[in-house]
């Protein structure tokens, strides 16, 4: 990681970091409890001279302490995790102003992208490296979920609402897009790719595609009444 706190600006980096942190956290908790249990199981196995348990009697005060202290310890960990999760969440929802917006309509079984200049592509989204990309998504039939494993992000699309997701492609390359919400018979075959091009190459392609378009009346007829999800 070059710049400090780069993970705060890029969900994919932040994801890997938080994932690591949470895994360490829950591994510690799990191992502690498991070791304790294993130790008790070994130590207090039944012996000829001890046929009955000999539990210490808990005083009411001890009983309360054994409740309240763990409650606070667990809550402390929960709030720690919540705070970290929240921070990354803000990154996920805080779309950089400097971005490229693309409309996505999903359907059985394709991803149909429409660029700002009217260029349309199917199952292949070409984007320039170095610029955040926002997808405004809706669906023409069932639920779908635009999942880009490499960018650690997915969000459902559905009829009647517009959802969004964004990612930050940095280097040229290809990334898999695959459908993560059960949408019908061919759900598992509904995939596409994101092709990240060097900025100049992208501009050339973009302009060339736009030139191919006939001068059509600006936007397509307004879609059905849609609710925006907050």
């Amino acid at each position, binding site marked *: 990681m070059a710049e400090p706190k780069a993970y705060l600006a890029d*969900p994919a980096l*932040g*994801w890997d970091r*938080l*994932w690591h942190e*949470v*895994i360490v*956290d*829950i591994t510690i*908790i*799990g191992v502690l*409890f*498991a070791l304790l249990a294993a130790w*008790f*199981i070994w130590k*207090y*196995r*039944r*012996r000829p001279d*001890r046929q*009955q348990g000999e*539990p210490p009697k*808990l005083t009411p005060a001890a*009983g309360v302490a054994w*409740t309240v202290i763990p*409650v606070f310890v*667990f*809550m402390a*960990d*929960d*709030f720690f*995790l*919540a705070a970290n*999760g*929240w921070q990354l*969440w803000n*990154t*996920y929802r805080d779309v950089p102003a400097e971005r490229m917006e693309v409309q996505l309509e999903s359907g059985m079984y394709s991803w149909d992208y429409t660029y700002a200049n009217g260029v349309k592509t199917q199952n292949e989204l070409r984007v320039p490296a170095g610029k955040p990309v926002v997808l405004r998504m809706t669906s023409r039939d*069932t*639920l779908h*979920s635009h*999942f880009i*494993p490499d960018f650690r992000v*997915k969000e*459902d699309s*559905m009829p*009647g*609402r517009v959802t969004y*997701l964004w990612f930050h492609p940095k280097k040229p390359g290809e990334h*898999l897009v695959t459908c*993560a*919400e*059960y949408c*019908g*018979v061919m*759900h*598992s*075959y509904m995939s596409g790719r994101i092709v990240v091009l060097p900025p100049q190459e992208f501009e050339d392609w973009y302009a060339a595609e736009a030139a191919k378009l006939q001068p059509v009346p600006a936007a397509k007829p307004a879609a059905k*009444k849609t609710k925006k*999800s907050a």
Partner: protein
Amino acid sequence: MNLKEWIFTTDHKRVGVLYLIGSIAAFGVAGVMAMLMRLELSQLGPTLTANPTQYNIWLYAHGAVMILGFQIPALTGFFANYCIPLMIGAKDVAFPRVNALSVWLFYVGIILAILTFFIPDPPDVMWTGYPPYSILTTGNTALYTFTVLILGFASIIGGVNFLTTVVYMRAPGLTWNKLNIFVWCTLAAFVLQLIFVPVLGTAVTLISFDKYLGTHFFDPARGGDVLTYQNLFWFYSHPAVYVIFLPFFGVVYEIVATFARNRVFNYAMVVYGGIFGIVALSGVVWVHHLYVSGMADWIRIGQMVTTLLISVPVGLMVIGLVGTLYKGAISFETPMMYALGVIFLFLIGGLTGIPLALPSLTLHLSDTYYVVGHFHYVMAVAGTFAIFGGVYYWFPKITGRMYSEFWGKAGFWLTFVGVNIVFWIMMDVGVKGMPRRYYDYAQFPQFEHAHQIMTFGAGIIGIGFAVAVINWIVGAMRGKPAGDNPWGSMSLEWTTVSPPPHGNWPTPPSVSEEWHPYGYGDGRVSSDEAILHTPDVPRVS
């Protein structure tokens, strides 16, 4: 054996056994579906079938039957029926006929679920039945609706019955603080069922209305909204995971207390902190299933916090369980092996829910095999182990005979090894991006090897569970006589003969001030007549 007195029985123990037979049969069927799915996934491309819909039907049946036909009925049907009246010293439930109605409705539900394999266009809507697909599909969504409705209704009348029974029919002297943990857990589960099943019932009814009667609940073109279904569905189905968790953890408590011959650690904490806490929180966390479905941000953040907080009451219940081992006198018969297995496997399952609770992590994890791994550990593994352990534990009470200890342990170790192979690998491929509900995974050829190992592991699990079931069948027919209280438990159900006669005790027992179901370690033994007033019961069989 008089068949009529079994089929038309209204006795809680026989109703319970009917529940057990039905739910284990359902488990077998759903398990076979799992095997078919695993075989299909063992290689890239078509393996068993070239038709994805076929796979989707297996998956639908697997999920729906495992949850609605196996675990919920086994826990709130079989264990509740068999154990609760015995544990509270009642001669039966409040409404024995209603009880019989609930078990036969359960069988009707199972029949409907199994009709899936015999009708044209069976449902392929997954156990979640999300619209719009469930409305657009050519599959028979009505079958899904009715399966859920009928099993739900069976469960509601069961809940009404048991809540009434425990409130009004406890033995004299059996105060609330002397209830077995299992009874508390099951009561809590029934309260959840009563509150939440109707919501699920409404949701699944409305998809059939939309599909067959022309309503527009989920049709945005006419003012409906697809997300409302998901909210209603999870408003039930999250609490439903505690309807499974609570009773199965209760079973584990009974087993651990008995085999450790030890008092349950900090009983009041377990009941009032753990169980009550779970009930209180269970209704306000459902949105963690909708993190990627386009919900408003404020509600995702709020329910992230509540979801994380569920770890507090659940953690208290884990402390109570581990604490019960402390200074115990632990022996390792088969039921205890399963129960101890649950402690470790549940830790894995529960803790892997924590990353899922964070919406930011779930944006990557949701709908991948990571989720599948999480819930198999916590439910399919911990839950099933508890159920199997519980059946072994009460087996001598139910049949009056003993199972084979050797085969019991053999079955345990097979499944223990198998589940860790299968479900650990699932989480791993999930984190790497493998989405769930995939008939084929051409995009992910790198996972073929992992899928192969999982299929192999699933075979081991299947053999392990089958060994257990065969062990029961053989034991019930040819096992050695077990005696009335082979484990030396203090709990009331062991004070009557095995198997208990109709009416359980000639006159209902009463308990004294000093008696407690977990009153070990005071130098007393379980059969102490001074603290229990249970007249001799004549043997019936």
